[in-house]
């Protein structure tokens, strides 16, 4: 009799617990068949120089200040490059959650750039799995730098223009690791140097590895196919870290490219990592929300 009573006492809490789990289990069952989008493949719309699959969300504006300093191997007289700085200012806006446009101005070649970027495919997990994200990118840049010498023939409007088309294909393999490949086509109406082809194919490889919740290590390489190996150009390569402070994203990096737009870093990188022609640089991204809801006070 005593044993029976003990058994009842011991079993009773278990049955209660079981019943509670069942109620929650019932709720879990309702939600087991959903598809979850994979978010935050990269912290920013750029991996380092090149674009990532990420877009600025609807009614949000990303104000970007990017700097590249002079070459590290320029010696102590130039404070290892810090005396020279090139700048790009960018205003980039999300029209929808998947479509964004941007405009930028670079000191390098006094170039304006205009671009549109569309998120075609989103990686998902859950009921319906899409393994990759795909974003399409198109940009046009106009160099407005006046001829630097008398011998240089002034460019016509047409000859100031360049075009870039990219398919950004990325996969977030885990919370830490994301990789992207970026087939690129660059077309210059009039290249900077004689003997250069107008159209260039390039394949970008990029990735990030999160080392903490807010810091990631990023790397990027653009392999560019050139016919003329006598030209003084190198493939663009960059290494850096992203620091996310909530509101701002700081990207600090080393790269052999001075330009911050595709035309310049893919097409006109003259620095060589091997010789130490490396630039220190940073991008600062600040996102503002123009969503009506943000005006609501809690």
């Amino acid at each position, binding site marked *: 009799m005593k044993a029976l009573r003990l058994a009842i006492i011991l079993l009773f809490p278990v049955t209660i617990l079981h019943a509670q789990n069942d109620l929650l289990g019932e709720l879990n069952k309702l*939600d087991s068949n959903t598809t979850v989008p994979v978010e935050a493949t990269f912290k920013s719309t750029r991996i380092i120089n090149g674009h990532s699959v990420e877009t600025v969300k609807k009614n949000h504006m990303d104000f970007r200040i990017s700097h590249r300093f002079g070459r590290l191997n320029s010696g102590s007289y130039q404070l290892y490059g810090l005396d020279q700085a090139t700048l790009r200012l960018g205003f980039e806006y999300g029209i929808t959650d998947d479509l964004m446009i941007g405009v930028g101005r670079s000191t390098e070649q006094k170039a304006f750039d205009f671009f549109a970027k569309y998120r075609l495919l989103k990686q998902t997990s859950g009921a319906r799995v899409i393994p990759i994200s795909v974003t399409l990118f198109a940009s046009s840049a106009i160099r407005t730098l006046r001829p630097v010498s008398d011998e240089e023939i002034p460019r016509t409007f047409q000859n100031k223009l360049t075009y870039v088309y990219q398919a950004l294909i990325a996969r977030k393999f885990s919370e830490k690791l994301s990789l992207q490949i970026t087939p690129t086509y660059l077309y210059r109406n009039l290249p900077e140097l004689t003997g250069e082809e107008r159209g260039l194919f390039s394949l970008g490889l990029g990735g990030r590895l999160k080392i903490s919740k807010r810091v990631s290590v990023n790397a990027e390489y653009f392999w560019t196919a050139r016919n003329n190996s006598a030209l003084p150009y190198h493939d663009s390569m960059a290494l850096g870290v992203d620091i996310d402070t*909530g509101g701002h994203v700081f990207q600090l990096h080393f790269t052999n490219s001075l330009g911050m737009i595709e035309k310049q870093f893919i097409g006109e990188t003259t620095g060589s990592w091997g010789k130490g022609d490396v630039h220190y640089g940073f991008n600062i991204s600040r996102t503002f*929300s123009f969503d009506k809801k943000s005006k609501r006070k809690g």
Partner: protein
Amino acid sequence: MKRHIVLSVIFLITILGIAGRTFAQGGMFATATGNTRFSSATPLENIDAENRKTQVLLNTTTGEIAIRMTMRDFVFPNKLMREHFNENYMESAKFPTGTFSGKLDQTIDFTKDGSYDASATGSFTVHGVAKTRTIKGKLKIEGSKITINSDFEVALTDHKIEVPSIVFVKIAQSIKVKSEYILSPYKK
């Protein structure tokens, strides 16, 4: 005369009670569109977010209640905040939901219309950390509709939610949570 008034009041209450009984019968009540809001208030910045897809299941016979919400369903005025909330604070890929699974502390007659102060004790899980908590609230029964309102605070340290010193956005150490769940009879 007084006796007559008292009697008619009792009579009225009885009638209303019977009427209520025909609507709210013991059993399962649920919603999938419950509203959970939280706010982090500091002198520098207020952050509000809202989840309109909270799922609630209440067994009026046993007083058991289960609440479940998906962290990614919280809507913020700034989408970057939402990303930080999921990526950095809640780690939503690892811990996708917040749940409460417990039992009402009072025996409430769900067959009677009215408003009751109530509380529920059970396991409250956020960020993968379960805490036994008693959450106070109000229960309102109107026919076949049960409205649950509650107001409570969640301390970040209780659930191992870290706010690093590098963050410029100020986040309160204790988050205020408000919820309103309107339940109707649950059909399987």
